[in-house]
């Protein structure tokens, strides 16, 4: 019975989207960290303001991860459980 259902319960659906958000986090972070590369070597940039930008992105990323993990932890299966994977204790065979 390992088939993926087409429709998920509302809570499960929310959890899946939360996991999607978590998956997008590093991609977003990488893109934002690479933004300073635009115009590198062409225009001069202040270390202080660039630093504020980098550290700002950094702390936002940490905050985002914290909020997502806090929401994920509410699931009965534990913070690392994925509704689409066979959960612990569910014997399939």
């Amino acid at each position, binding site marked *: 019975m*390992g088939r993926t259902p087409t429709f998920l319960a509302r809570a499960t659906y929310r959890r899946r989207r939360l*996991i999607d958000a*978590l*998956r997008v*986090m*590093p*991609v977003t*972070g*990488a893109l934002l*960290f*690479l933004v*300073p*590369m635009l115009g*590198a*070597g062409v225009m*001069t*940039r*202040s*270390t*202080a303001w*660039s*630093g504020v930008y*980098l*550290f700002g992105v*950094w*702390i936002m*990323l*940490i*905050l*985002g*991860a*914290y909020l997502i*993990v806090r929401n*994920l*932890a509410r699931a009965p299966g*534990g*913070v*690392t459980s*994925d509704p689409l*994977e*066979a*959960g*612990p*204790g*569910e*014997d399939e065979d």
Partner: protein
Amino acid sequence: MVGFNLLVVVALAYVVLLFLVAFWGDKQARLGKGGWLRSPVVYTLSLSIYCTAWTFYGAVGYAARSGLEFVTIYLGPTLVMVGWWWILRKLVRIGRAQRITSIADLISSRYGKSTALGVIVTLLAVIGTTPYIALQLQSVVLSFDVFAGHATVDGGQAANPKATAFWIAVGLAAFTVLFGTRNLDANERHHGVVTAIALEAVVKLVALLAVGVFVVWGVGGGPGEIARTIETSDIAVWDMQAGRWVTMIFLSAAAFLTLPRMFQVLVVENVDETQLATASWAFPLYMFAMSLFVIPIAAVGLSTLPAGSNPDLYVLTVPLHFEQGGLAMLTFLGGFSSATSMVIVASIALSTMVSNHIVMPIWLSARSGGAAMSGDVRRLVLIARRFSIMAVLGLGWLYYSLSGGGAALASIGLISFAGVAQVLPAMVGGLYWRGATRVGAAMGLILGFAIWAYALFLPSFGEAGIISSRVLAEGPFGIGWLRPQAFFGITGIDPVVHAIFWSMTANTLAFIIGSILSFPRPVERLQGAQFVNVFEHSARTQGWTQGEVESEDLLVMAQRIMGAREAQELFQEETARQGREGYLPETTPDFLRTLERELSGAVGAATAHAMVSQIVGGASVSVEDLMAVADETQQILEYSNQLEAKSEELTRTMRQLSEANDKLTVLSIQKDAFLSQISHELRTPMTSIRAFSEILKEGELGEGKTREYSGVIQEEAIRLTRLLDDLLDLSVLEAGQVTLNVETGNLGNVIDRAVRAGASGSDGRVIAIRRVKSREDLTIETDTGRLAQVFINLIANARKYCDAAAPELTIDVTDDGDAIEIDFIDNGGGIPPASQSVIFEKFSRLSDQQKAGGAGLGLAICREIMDKLGGSIAYLPGQGGAAFRVTLPR
């Protein structure tokens, strides 16, 4: 002002404190009070060994040289941690499901438990980590020197740096051996070490934050002022090199996953995935805090300290410059903590790898070739680990002594990172691509490692080193396109970017091409499936406890490897030895040792050990996972063997059933025949008795007639009586209720008696008897009466049925030592082959009943008698007439 002696005392006191804390942590865990050691906070703090002395001192130096670029070293790991759902979650799950002990074990295990890959990764890790350990020793020595030589420090003495480094190495080795090799199972947490490292993580964070706060608010006059200081310093303009920026973020992310010490704390020492979820934001926060004040400290250092000061030591020299002795001492302890915690964990990780992937295979192969050693493997492994720790630290010290500690901290660190990052393609490929093979992984690793060594590692020894400046400028043997820092003649790239780009590109391509072109072994394919599909496989891994469940699992596994019957015998034997019944013994150490030895005959000692210990020691391995370890071919073979055996058994049973059915049918027919025979046999005499008695009853008969009819009635009654006697005799014999009257007699006499009784009868037929009396003179011990009965029957039969003109019976006696054979052979037509098998059955008369005058029970009685006497009677074909052989045991 701060005294140098005080610093030494404080440093020593700190070391003593670390030992005490480690002891305390170990003791707490042993007393079962170590629950807090499993908390996400402690896990996060133990991850902080990523921030070594390179971070503590080097980051400021890096910032003073290259501005904001230093932050890439922490952005990479931040992205990995924040994206834990992608890689780390899978890595941690696999690490627990497969009981992974190190990064070398991960690669080796993924690619079919390959010993060769384990060795390659181990060597790579040792070579890559040695400079890093040297770097830590160097930083501690440098910080000592700063105190010793600084104008604001009293009583400073310039110590011999090599000697200082040596004693630090010795102290670290002692600590690591003491707390790092307590237990054999690398999967168990080193509680003492973890406690000490958590303390050190706090100390270094507090120290760096304290310096930062002092610089921003104590010296700089607030954030605004500090911003202005930065704007006016040498690093005011961020001269960003895009190539380096991307490369460094990638490199630090890769190294975060592949550094042996990071793998140790991230995966091996992880006990709960919740730890990872918390650390995913908490550890980036830790790194954020560690990096926050780096630029301000660098800017203040650059502006206040005299030109030519080593920027790697600004963290220490800035407080000293402002005569903050206490702060400097705290900073010193922070740096000391950063260095020592890294060295401790790195040497534990490396020693596990060296002992498991280099020492053990050598020992195992030596053992199988040499004398049968049954030594304590546990002890051997622990000793190997201890020596490995000392060797790793020795190598670090040697590298430090040889390199002279000249290079900037940051560049040594980057070289190390680039080396261990070569494991990344094989690792990530192995996690997500089932087609990745051992050959591909080995090719990628070797090629990437070779390019790294040639383009980055060897040139780092300087121009006097192995790669001369001429080779750097013109290429080896003048081949321009092979210049170590300008492959294919593409110049102008930063050496680190150059090396990373080419080594990772070649590594990944070789890995992919090698994997596509090669064909994996069955174990590799199974392991590949286990790794890639870990979330499907290990969903129900919990709940293993001791007792019968475990024993049963062992039996299931043993059956898979040894074959069902052998395994059941082994288990049954052991259960019987324990004085119990069934197949499931207590899992005593003795039994496990026996089982392991038995298993090693089938799968090799290393695997057997791993298998048994996984079942017995582990709570996170399912039987299914273990099954997969056994060769796929073995499983298929086993299955087809079982099928074959089953079908054979079925055929056998069917044959037996059909035989039994035939027999039953025959018996049923015989029973019917018997009943009809017996009624017929009884009716014939009864009919004549009734008829004649009715005639007599009517009277009016003459004296002569009356006598004649009375004679018939008597004759028929005698026949009836004889029939009933025979039947009774047979039933008594068949029921086994007969009592034998055993006596000693002469065979000749018995035959004499039989001939007298049987050779002539009332019917007037006679038969001539031929005998060799001398051969009959044998003493026998049996029921002679019964034996005579058999003989009489045989002689009478011959007399009745022999169809020769002059009937003749030969009685031939043979004594062959074990038995006496008495053959009765007549000169008649014999018995047709079709009838030979039925003559011993009841009522099996071949000719007309009236003519024979018997009931057809004779031979059946003979057979029963001979059975009772321990002998036999059989028809002897091919003698020219009817022939019977009576065999009598001596």
